[in-house]
């Protein structure tokens, strides 16, 4: 797709976000200094060592990173859905004024589904195979808000209709295995919305889907965000998906946030060498193989993350000083990076603009 079209799309969404800005002066979601650890035997392994994230109502924020970057764990921590053995070891998570890290079980139940809806990667496995799809949606609706069985059913049918199901009354009675992957993902979205949440967390929602289906599902999610004034956090490894639908991109590497900014700025003028290297390594339909540059080395394994800047061993810009710890710092309004050498990147940006 020509780049203009993408930019057009992005500005569209942005205007919407700006419209919504007044209502969302206070961030709906704010995550700071989040640390997540795996307790293995006596050892504790850092999986996420510093994650910071915020989202306002009506805003779509993408968290981008490769496998092992800690993006999915960060997302799950927000809903208190970390796997057994993995826990939050420090930092704060606030959702709509609720302190998630310190919350008791009852608060968390009210939060899940009621304040935070979640969409998963694998629509094949995210639905209960022995339960009708309608019942699964209705159940989510009944868990929040006092609905009778009939009301919950009506709500589920209404949601199915909103998700683009024709004849929702009839589809209500289907089982997950009777639906295609894209349709199942719509059911998952309906479940996530049934409790009337204000924040929608999406964990690689389109990775398992074909490209044409991906687009439809993404459009549906973005449409809902503006219609219902939801905040959306979308975790993906696909920079293209992030570029296409979000207002802000947060890049994670080795359990840390390394850069954050608007898609236009971040994807065209990155201020962290990892982002830059990633962009140079992703083939596009306009680029040729001569322009493609591999990143040397492999992403570090959890528990083996180098001290200082974690990208240092793979970085083309690294200097000895990069071995010292580095903090996220704002470089221009709305742009944050965790790189000591960002001045070099800024100079490169100057040069390309000149």
């Amino acid at each position: 797709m020509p780049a203009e079209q993408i930019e057009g799309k992005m500005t569209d969404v942005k205007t919407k976000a700006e419209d919504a800005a007044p209502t969302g002066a206070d961030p709906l979601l704010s995550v700071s200094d989040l640390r997540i650890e795996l307790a293995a035997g006596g050892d504790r392994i850092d999986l996420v060592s510093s994650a910071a994230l915020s989202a306002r109502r009506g805003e779509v924020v993408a968290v981008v990173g490769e496998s092992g970057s800690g993006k999915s764990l960060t997302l799950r921590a927000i809903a208190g859905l970390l796997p057994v053995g993995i826990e939050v070891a420090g930092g704060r998570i606030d959702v709509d004024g609720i302190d998630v890290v310190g919350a008791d079980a009852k608060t968390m139940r009210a939060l899940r589904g009621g304040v935070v809806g979640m969409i998963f990667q694998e629509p094949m496995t995210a639905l209960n195979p022995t339960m009708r799809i309608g019942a699964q949606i209705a159940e989510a609706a009944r868990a929040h808000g006092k609905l009778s069985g009939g009301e919950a059913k009506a709500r589920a049918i209404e949601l199915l209709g909103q998700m683009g199901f024709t004849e929702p009354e009839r589809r209500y009675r289907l089982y997950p295995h009777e639906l295609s992957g894209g349709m199942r993902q719509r059911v998952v979205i309906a479940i996530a919305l049934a409790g009337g949440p204000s924040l929608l967390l999406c964990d690689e929602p389109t990775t398992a889907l074909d490209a044409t289906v991906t687009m439809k599902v993404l459009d549906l999610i973005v449409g809902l965000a503006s219609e219902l004034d939801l905040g959306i956090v979308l975790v993906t490894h696909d920079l293209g998906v992030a570029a296409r639908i979000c207002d802000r991109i947060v890049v994670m590497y080795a359990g840390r946030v390394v850069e954050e900014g608007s898609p236009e700025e971040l994807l065209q003028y990155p201020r962290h060498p990892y982002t830059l290297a990633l962009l140079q390594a992703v083939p596009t339909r306009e680029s040729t193989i001569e322009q493609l540059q591999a990143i040397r080395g492999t992403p570090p394994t959890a528990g083996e993350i180098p001290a200082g800047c974690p990208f240092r061993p793979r970085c083309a810009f690294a200097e000895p000083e990069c071995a010292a710890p580095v903090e996220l710092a704002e470089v221009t309004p709305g742009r944050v990076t965790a790189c000591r050498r960002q001045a070099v990147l800024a100079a490169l940006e100057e040069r390309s603009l000149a």
Partner: protein
Amino acid sequence: MNAVGGMPPSAAEIDVESRTPMRFGAVGNLTRGALGGNGSLLAGLIILGTLIALGLLAPVIAPDDPVKQDINNILVSPGNASHLLGSDQLGRDTLSRLLYAIRNDILIALGAIILPFLIGTLVGVLAGYRGGWVDSLLVGIVDVIIAFPILVLLIALVFVLGPGVRTIIIAVAAIDWVVYARLARTSARREAAMEYVIAAQVGGVPTRRVIVRHIIPNLISQSVVYAMSDAVLVILFITTLGFLGLGIPPPAPDLGTMIAEGQAYLNSQWWLAVIPGAAIVVTALGLSLIADGLAQKLDAR
């Protein structure tokens, strides 16, 4: 270069966040660490090892001849100087009979599972890998034999063949192989569909070698684990046959026969039936623990 020296724990283990759906189970295994199956395995090996050692050494350590009758000393209570565990209704030394019975039962059980293990696994792998009519035929045979209650068919077979150690081994093998065959067939079909097998075929590795070098090593451990729990069943079958008078022909000692003979004296000489029963339970427990431990080790991989 990370290739030099040991690799860190493979990425797949700690990498809880991959493109594949998050596997909570894998994390669970990791957090439990090495505690897993080693405890069971060790306990099982100690129990079974002790029993096998006792059985093998029976000719040396048994205080008496297990079939020697002593009419003057019948139904002696345990603790007696010449009969440590007492004697039975024919004055035979219980301890000696017990040791020989353990020896006989364990040896027959192990003997009885080796044949079906080998035949069943081989047939199952061939049928599963080749598919076609051979496979259909195997599935048919398996379905028919599985339809019988195992013990009933076993008793019927032993009955028509006439009692004896050889009969027991043949009868167990004739029935039991289908279970190994079914297990190996399923695994072989799964492995044959794996890309590494296709890659070997594409690379020109001949079929026989694909089966022997690629498929069998990847499924055999599962069959071994099954064989251990199967041994429990076979021990139970053998002693049941003995109890029903269809087992090892008397006077050779067998735990089931000992229980059958002891049941008449349960209210006076309880040990005659209780001790051999406990010996069966302990033997089976040893085998089950080994199976359990092996299965957990296998799972962890």
